[in-house]
């Protein structure tokens, strides 16, 4: 199939990366903890890629991306727990159901809010994020399983390195193919100029909705992998600070660059988690003092954003 033929280089590279990572794990150079972080980095890359589609490529600013990540996480946690899933092959459909749930909610919420622009969109997505946080905090009122503000406990651990790796590579390839097709081109047209896009016949609203839905779907899958990796969820894992995490990765990686998001995701997770290993906890707490400063510095340095690459 063309899909695999086109992707041969990426697949080859992935196999090499997989083997080397496995070898490192096998020869025991790294702890369980590092293995967990590597997995977490894959998850963060996937969710950030979703925001990159929405914001980096299509220009629709969202401050609520973590909400969709959270929806995916809670849906997967719920389904794997009530069905006591143990088998990876039963887990894969649930992963995609969780992504689809986040995508569907993104679609429904996108219908009203994607008519808004820039800062109003920011407020609406922030509002939605806060709303989801409130619902998660009170989720025990709907069903005890969710645990409300005490957190969701006892989620089956199903996310393995192999599974996460294959799923993430597969979704990166699909995202790549979408972006380097007419749809990706239309998204970038919309980011550049909505009126001009309409003047060449692009249905800007439905294209924005498509980008938003797909981006939320990716976040949902990321969230699902997260839930079944850490086996415990808390509403505070999905608040605005998490949304800002994703935003920083997209901006640092260069908005509208897949490779950039991958590098930035790895660096970001490595940096934050690395700090945790070398520094005492109180110093790590300082990160939310420095991250905002980093954000401001980035904006001052390149106020026009780090622009999308052309396709040639």
């Amino acid at each position, binding site marked *: 199939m*063309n899909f695999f033929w086109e992707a041969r280089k990426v697949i080859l590279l992935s196999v090499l990366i997989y083997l080397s990572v496995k070898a490192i794990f096998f020869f025991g150079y790294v702890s369980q903890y590092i293995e967990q972080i590597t997995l977490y980095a894959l998850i963060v890359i996937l969710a950030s890629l979703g925001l990159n589609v929405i914001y980096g490529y299509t220009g629709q600013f969202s401050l609520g991306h973590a909400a969709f990540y959270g929806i995916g996480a809670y849906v997967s946690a719920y389904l794997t727990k009530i069905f006591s899933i143990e088998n990876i092959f039963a887990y894969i459909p649930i992963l995609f159901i969780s992504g689809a749930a986040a995508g569907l909610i993104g679609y429904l919420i996108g219908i009203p809010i994607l008519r808004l622009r820039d800062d109003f969109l920011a407020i609406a997505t922030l509002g939605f994020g806060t709303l989801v946080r409130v619902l998660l905090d009170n989720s025990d009122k709907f069903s005890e399983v969710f645990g409300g503000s005490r957190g969701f406990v006892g989620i089956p651990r199903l996310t393995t390195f192999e599974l996460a790796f294959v799923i993430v590579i597969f979704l990166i390839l699909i995202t790549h193919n*979408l972006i380097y*097709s007419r*749809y990706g081109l239309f998204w970038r047209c919309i980011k*550049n*100029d909505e009126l001009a896009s309409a*003047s*060449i016949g692009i249905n800007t609203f439905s294209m924005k909705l498509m980008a938003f839905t797909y981006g939320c779907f990716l976040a949902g899958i990321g969230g699902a992998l997260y839930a079944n990796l850490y086996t415990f969820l808390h509403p505070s894992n999905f608040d605005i600070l998490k949304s800002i995490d994703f935003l920083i990765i997209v901006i640092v990686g260069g908005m509208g660059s897949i490779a950039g998001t991958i590098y930035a995701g790895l660096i970001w997770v490595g940096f934050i988690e690395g700090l945790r290993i070398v520094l005492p906890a109180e110093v790590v707490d300082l990160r939310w003092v420095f991250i905002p400063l980093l954000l401001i510095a980035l904006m001052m340095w390149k106020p026009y954003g780090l622009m*999308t690459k052309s396709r*040639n």
Partner: protein
Amino acid sequence: MNALEVEGLEKSFGGVKAVDGISFVVEEGKTVGIIGPNGAGKTTVFNLITGFYRVDRGRILFYGKNITRTQPYKLPHLGIARTFQNLRLFSNLSVFENVLSAILKKDGYNVVSSVFRTADYFMKEGKAEKKARELIEFFQLSGKENYPANNLPYGEQRRLEIARALALQPKILLVDEPGAGMNPREVQDLLQTLREVKERFSLSIVIIEHQMGLVMNISDKVVVMDFGEKIMEGTPGEVKKDKRVIEAYLGEEFI
């Protein structure tokens, strides 16, 4: 056959009538010029035809089909393309992508083809790229395919915008002040290009222009607007002699 009929178009902004009962007809294959002083309402007429502003009153027919209040993005599919007075290119996209986007909008493949790279994807992409290169060559932008659009000199940006509009293979092309900000030599070039375009793509054209020379040269018919109203309509020869037109332009530079 009439390509475009505009009947009694009206539009006000906060009580001020920007367009006040404009009617005119564009016959298939003909070029109609719209002239008038700044603020006469010419651009507003375009924005009404292309659905960017909501029509207050009046009708717009395209080959007999009522297109009043149609959403802007639907019009290119019917065969209407436009350019903007203040240039609206995809400024961070390459010259090539600016043209390609319009072609792929007109003749594209579906999501499944995109994701799985089916034969349809390669065929349509190949065709589109070939066509984009042809258009770029026709508008003398060859060699600059990979420049970001906003790195082109102003005159070339104007040409690129027309190329992008033509990439939609329209039946009618609406151009808003294509000569604005160009020097006389560039205007002459543009004139030549528009003539060739008309022949090669067998189009109807509506052209708004401030520089009388350009319009008079290319138009089969000229509509003159002032304060939102049509003050006269006729051949370029008739318009040049008309007293009301000269009055409307008094105080403006009359080229």
